[in-house]
């Protein structure tokens, strides 16, 4: 996401992205692809088939892969359920080994046991995901 093309009032919850192709490529593709008037048969004899580079709009179909990704997001949850008391302290301990923000907010005893190697491997997985994501998105945007 290119921040420079996006504006908003300071403190506003709403981001503004101008039209005119000023957004990201994903925005442009989503805005214009497969839209607009289609020339019908009456004049199609004059329509020239030109070679269009393959551009695919992203189609979202939930799949096992999606489900596993959501489950992985549960692993990365750093937000403590609001109705649970006393957890921040426990999480604070568990987070010692993990980077803040990537800490696993395990519940109860399990959280205390997450330390050292386990937390590290979780953290690695988290950062791998982050590296993967932009690459995949770019591929899909074309």
């Amino acid at each position, binding site marked *: 996401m290119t921040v420079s093309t996006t504006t908003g009032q300071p403190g506003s919850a709403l981001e503004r992205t101008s039209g*005119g192709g000023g957004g990201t490529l994903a925005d442009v593709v989503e805005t*214009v692809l*497969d839209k607009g008037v289609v020339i019908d048969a009456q*004049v199609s004899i*004059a329509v020239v088939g030109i070679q269009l580079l393959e551009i695919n709009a992203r189609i*979202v179909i*939930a799949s096992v892969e999606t*489900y596993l990704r959501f489950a992985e997001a549960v692993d990365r949850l750093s937000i403590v359920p609001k109705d649970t008391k006393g957890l921040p302290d426990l999480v604070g301990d568990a987070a010692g080994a993990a980077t803040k923000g990537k800490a696993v907010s395990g519940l109860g005893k399990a959280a205390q046991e997450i330390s050292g190697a386990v937390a590290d491997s979780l953290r690695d997985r988290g950062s791998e995901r982050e590296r993967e994501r932009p690459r995949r998105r770019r591929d899909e945007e074309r």
Partner: protein
Amino acid sequence: MGQENGLFIYGIVPSDVEPTPEAEGVGSPPGEVIAIQHGELAALVSEVGLEEPLGRPADLTAYERLLDGTAVVAPVLPVRFGTVVTGADAVEDLLAAHHDRFAAALDELEDRLQYTVHGRFDEQEFISGFLAENAAAAALADEVRGRPEIESREQRIRLGEMISQAVELRREAENRDLIDAVGRYAEADVALPPSHELDAVRVSFLVAGDEEDEFVRAVEDFAERRRDLIRTRLIGPLAPYDFVSAHQLVE
């Protein structure tokens, strides 16, 4: 015009619309955009080489820039990206064949612009909210959390499916709420299919010039009420891509 050239059609406008000299079209180098008139209508076109494949990012951006730039000064019917005809005669045939219908559609679009509201759930916020409300999902979350995928695959798939369904349901509700909240400041609205699995809202609105300010304020209020859960963006003003249907015009 040589054998190997065609005319790329961007959109249809009233006949008094003239492209500015600096308007750049698709292709490399970018073609010069001209208007071909017929009756009350004109088509914005530029010459393209038929051997040159189109659809590079720069082509899409040029197409959108021209149409959006036109839309803020005059009504415009976008023509689907990639429509190329043999020459000026073909453009006139096209305008003649649909003259009245195009003219009527342009009348309806006078002083109207499209805005698209696109919002995405904050993943952590959504999932933690969902787990707090759904005991069965929270129990599954406890089972999978911290365990390798290979040992907990079935539970992970079940949990992920529950989350995915919750996102879908919530998305439908958010789209409805958005239309309820801001639809009164728009002439028309259309919910669009999600483009990301965490999409929270995606709706296009056709907004009249004198309602633009109120519309934007209403979207700001909507975004403000959900600021922790949804990252909301307002894209526009745009040409009315989502409000010209091929079927409506061609039948």
